[in-house]
Each structure stands twice: as C-alpha cells, then as structure tokens.
C-alpha cells in the first residue's frame, strides 16, 4: 500500500501541472479544470494497482480527463464565437498579452475533433500514433486533424485586425 501510494504521489506531482493545462485547454475555466484534474486522479487512485507503468498511466490519465470533460462539461461549453464573450480567467502564470489572448480565443473556437489532438500533441507531447490510440483514430486521421487544427489557428491569427475591427 505504501509503495502504491508513493507511486501515486509521484504521478500526481509530475503530471498534475500538465493535466491542468490540458483541462484548461478543454474547458477554458480554471475551476472546472481543477475539478477535472482532481476527478481524473481520483479515478487513477481507485485503479492505482494498474498505474505501475508510468508511461501507460500518463496516457491513461489524459484519456480519462478528456472523457470526464466530455461527460461533465462538453454540453456546457460556452459559445465563444464573439471574442468579447471569452470567459475571464485568472490563472497564475497566465499570459495576458494580446497575442496570447488571440491564440487562446482561436484555440477555443476550434472544434473538439481538431482541438483535442492538438492539445495532446502540444501539451502532452504524444506522437500521432499515441494520439490515435488514445482517440481511437488512425494515425493518418490524426495527422489530418492536426494539420487542419493548425491551419484553422493560422487562418484566425492571420486576420486579427479584421476581427478586432468588427462591431
């Protein structure tokens, strides 16, 4: 039990920051993100005997968090079509620059099918094959979705002036 607890504590210390970022990228709300991370780790704790392989545990926790988000918050996702409706979030270390704001807004506008693989790659550092396994997609599909996600981001970021000029 002590060994399992020690392993679990190590996982929490190592992975809670990146899982929080991933959660925040999914829901854009720090409180919900914290709840998601906590619930994800509690599920991990209940299955701690299966978390001996740290690498597998990491992918498993990301998958759990994504599923939890879909279960709890996907239907409540705020409509962020209008940049002025982006939720005000205050998170420690949060980049408050205009560029960061625009990037976050562009991310929030991405469809979940494109956003999730992108966040798994950028925050989790997973390969296309690993992302495919986590999302139950073929590797080529993941490649296509990543391409489209970044293309959509570029399209949005390349015309900030037009968007800012909107009434």
């Amino acid at each position, binding site marked *: 039990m002590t060994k399992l*607890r020690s392993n679990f504590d190590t996982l929490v210390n190592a992975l809670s*920051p990146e899982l929080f970022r991933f959660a925040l990228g999914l829901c854009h709300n720090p409180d919900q993100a914290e709840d998601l991370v906590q619930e994800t*780790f509690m599920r991990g704790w209940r299955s701690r005997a299966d978390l001996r392989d740290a690498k597998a545990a990491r992918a498993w926790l990301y998958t759990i968090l994504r599923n939890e988000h879909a279960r709890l918050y996907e239907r409540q996702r705020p409509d962020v079509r209008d940049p002025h409706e982006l939720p005000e979030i205050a*998170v*420690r*270390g949060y980049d408050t620059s205009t560029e960061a704001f625009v*990037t976050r807004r562009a991310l929030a506008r991405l469809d979940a099918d494109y956003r999730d693989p992108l966040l798994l790659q950028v925050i989790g550092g997973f390969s296309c094959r690993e992302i495919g396994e986590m999302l139950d997609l073929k590797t080529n599909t993941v*490649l296509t979705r*990543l391409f489209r996600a970044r293309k959509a981001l570029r399209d949005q970021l390349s015309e900030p002036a037009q968007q800012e000029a909107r009434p």
Partner: protein
Amino acid sequence: MNCLEFRRRLLADPLATDDQLHGHEGTCPTCANFARDARAQEIQLRNMLKQTKPPPGLADRIQLAARFEQRSLLQRRGWYAVAASMLVAISISMLSLWNTAIERRDLALTQSVLHHIDDEAHHLREAHAIPAARVDWVFRRFGARLAEDIGRVNFAAECLMRHKNGVHLVMPGKMGPITVFFMPGEMTDKALEIESARFHGKIVPTDWGSVAVIGEQGEPLQGLGQRLAAAVSWPAHGSAESVALRRGGGSDVDLAVGVGVGVFAGVGVAQQKNG
C-alpha cells in the same frame, strides 16, 4: 515532396525533425518562409500553454483527497466488520436464547413429571393389578385404545398433567414401581432424560404428545417408552382432550385439590383406582 505535401506534414507537427521536410525546405524558399512562420507560431503556442501554472496546492489537495477516500473506505470496511460482528453476536444470542427457551421448556416438563410422582407418591404403593378392562376404559376416555397388551398395571387414572389431562399408570418393575404418563399435547423435539436422587427415566416424543416412563434408579427402562407409545393407538392431537373433557363431569371422576408446586397444575383431576 511537393509544397502541398510539405505544408500538410509541417502543420501536422511543425517541430518535427524530418530529413524530407528539411530537404524540401532547403530547395523551396517559399516553403522555408512558411516553415519559419509556422515554427514561430508553434513555439508561441507552446509557450503560452506551458506558462499556465496549476493552482497552488493542487497536487496536495489531490493526494489529500486520495488519502481521505482511502481512509473512508477503510472506515467503511471497519464499520462493515463491526456490523457483521454485531449481526453474528445477535444471531448467536438469539440462537442461545432460543435454545435456552427450549431447554427451560424441556426442564419444566421433566420437573413437572417428577413433581407429579412426588405429589401422588401414594399411587406407587399400589401392589395389586387392575383388570385390563379398567386400563382400557381409562384410555377410551381419550378416544385412545390399547392396540396390544401392555402387561400388568397396578394403577390407571385420568390425571391433569401440566395443562391437559392425560393417563397416569403405575406398573411393577424389577427395582420398584414404574410410573407412566401419557401426556397428550406435551410436544417435545427430542427424548428427554429424567434424573433425580431416587428416579430416572425418559420422556419419549410422539406425534400427539409424549410418553414419560420413570422408574427407581437402576430400573431397566430401555425401549419401554417406545413400546408403550406404540402399544396405544392415540387419536389425532386435540381430539383426545375434547373426549376427556366431555367426560369430566362423569360420576366416576373425582375432583381433588392437588398439591402441585412450580409449574405443576394446582388442580388435579384424578381418577381413583377401580374397586
């Protein structure tokens, strides 16, 4: 690799180190510019996301919650164990009480039999055999009949046992008189041993009540209760009493005040020996 393929692969992972990508980039200035721009944007994206810090104490809260849940689980298990133990204890107590109640019931029955003998000890001195017809007559008062000869009988009467009337017989034995009680309605689950300083015997269960056979210490009584029970054809439980009570006011029934103690009845109806 053409420009379209280059851009598709680059945007799938701008920071990938791929020789084919670098090869095309080296030969196509437009794609090289596109790649620089895409990598700068990627780095900006990653920096923005990685600058975000989790709330202070998040890891501690998660670890605390996990410990709390574990403790709750252990406590629940502890309570389950306590509840299970209590259930077992209560079951044992109930069983014990049940057994005690049965034992007390059986003890009361055996004591009532001994008290009955003591209270009517004068019947033990009956030394003369009574006619078989007289014995048969006593049984017929209960709707019962003797299916076979039960041997010599010195005393036969209808007596109040504990709650209902039954047949009281005294028969000669090797060590002294043997008392036999046919006790309708006195149901018992098993054969009961009777022991006192002077007497020993057994109460044998039947489907209509029980038969008690008591002799002096040393009297061989093996199987006697079963033989006597088998020798009498007794009516179904309940009908014997009605027959006896209907006859209760008959001219040849004497009412007498008994001297029973304890659980023994205070009033006895004794049929005196014929003659």
